[in-house]
């Protein structure tokens, strides 16, 4: 992959019967960028994300992720991305160490790599004491931070974060974003969805989906200027209120 882009999409479309969930979206995400992927419920974010993760075949259009084609090379895509969501991240009935061993194994990493990386993460998160604790009994804040570390365990080029901070307390939410910043500074591309509009401000660029289309895409500063808004919350409301689809 010689491009400066981690993700490219050109008229990417997904239809379910006569319903167009994602309607010809086109965008690029730069390598090392923190890209916020916003939209109201039902706007098509999850469907778009599933296509980019190689989990759902597009109806038409083109897209590459980490240089791989979403139609033909979806297995390579899965190997080169990380994924974390609020709903699914770690196995509750495995210990901290076992979760890392499991994910490292799934991604085909060597024992030496897994051992070294596990030690690094435990040290980094100050979790040495909890290495053999079941994930179930960790506080939620720790779980989310561990989940992010596990999502980037195999050192993927891109990590997809689907509402990673939902329900998390405001202090942990900020610690979590600190981890995102550090990963991005080290060159990992971050593709993130959130319902917290203050978090949109932490992104280099954001796109806002309305009814399957990308209605706006720019840096938070430029979007606020363009829409004459004081905050990203206002920008979002102006755009999302245009939605015609029934999901309210």
């Amino acid at each position, binding site marked *: 992959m010689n491009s400066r882009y981690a993700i490219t999409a050109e008229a990417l479309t997904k239809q379910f019967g006569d319903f167009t969930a994602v309607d010809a979206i086109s965008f690029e995400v730069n390598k090392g960028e923190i890209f916020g992927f916003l*939209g*109201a*419920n*039902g706007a098509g974010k999850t469907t778009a994300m599933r296509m980019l993760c190689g989990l759902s075949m597009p109806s038409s259009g083109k897209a590459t992720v980490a240089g791989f084609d979403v139609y033909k090379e979806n297995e390579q895509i899965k190997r080169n991305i990380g994924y974390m969501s609020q709903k699914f991240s770690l196995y509750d009935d495995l210990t901290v160490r076992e979760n890392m061993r499991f994910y490292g194994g799934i991604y085909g990493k060597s024992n030496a790599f897994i051992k070294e990386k596990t030690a690094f993460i435990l040290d980094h998160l100050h979790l040495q004491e909890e290495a053999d604790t079941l994930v179930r*009994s960790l*506080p*939620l804040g720790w779980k989310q931070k561990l989940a992010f570390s596990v999502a980037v365990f195999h050192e993927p080029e891109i990590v997809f974060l689907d*509402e990673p901070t*939902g*329900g*998390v*307390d*405001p*202090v*942990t939410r*900020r610690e979590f*974003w600190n981890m995102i*910043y550090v990963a991005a*500074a080290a060159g990992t591309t971050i593709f993130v969805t959130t*319902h*917290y*509009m*203050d978090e949109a*401000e*932490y992104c280099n660029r954001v796109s806002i989906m309305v009814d399957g289309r990308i209605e706006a895409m720019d840096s*938070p*500063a430029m979007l606020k200027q363009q829409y004459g808004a004081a*905050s*990203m*919350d206002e920008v*979002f*409301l102006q755009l*999302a*209120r245009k*939605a015609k689809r*029934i*999901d*309210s």
Partner: protein
Amino acid sequence: MPAVSINHIIKTYGTKKQKVTALDDISFNVEKGELFGIIGPDGAGKTSLFRILTTLLLADSGTATVDGFDVVKDFASIRNRVGYMPGRFSLYQDLTVEENLEFFATIFKTSIEKNYELIKDIYVQIEPFKNRRAGKLSGGMKQKLALSCALIHSPTVLFLDEPTTGVDAVSRKEFWEMLRGLKAKGITILVSTPYMDEAGLCDRVALLQKGKILSINTPSGVVGEFKQPLMAVKSANMLPLLRELQQLDIVTDAYPFGEYHHAVMKNEEAAEELKKRINDTTNKDLVIKRTEANIEDCFISLMKNV
């Protein structure tokens, strides 16, 4: 008589060896007709409290009344007069919209017609889909149906457990407008949420964290308790700027806050001095201004001082 009265409620889970305290000696009252918010992250104890008040869970110790009835002795009376919308969608997925509503009306020995006025504003929005199975509804429509079902027996107190979690900003605003409408009809509403920005929409709020109440007040009262000067700071170089702020001895705490970082200053002199202490050559486009704390600033400060 308050609509809800909670006295020294303690609830723990787990074994002696691994005990988790979900609610740690909680006491407060909610007045009749109040829109009362319980604000806290996951694991704060919000659901445990709601389940105790709706008689679905027994506390280890302490007492509580709803509408004057004891949650243990008078559980049957309470069940007849409260509405409860759990955090997880709990209607019958294989019944239609109308069937679900009829089912709940029948259970409470009433009818849709009898209480239609109360749910009208909400139900008309999903009535066009009344023959659709509940499992096939979108998130926003499910939420409206669940609220209609919780209201169909005309409850005096309504318990809504995280009705807006995972819901986008537009639908959240609409939902809160519906709640204001219900409040105007005289219903007491207890609503829990992890979104700090929703606190401002309540009459009073309790900030809950790890089973303890951090603060209980009107939204403006909570903010008024924040005594230290607060500065909003931004530059073209946000991450190094944050580290710089965090290392200053005149700053108690600094954290990202949307477009700006917020710096909690030691005192007034510190606030005056901040401009001089930040390097404006490495920080291009530096902006430093005084700002007002909001609920989230208060929550962060209270969490760190526990």
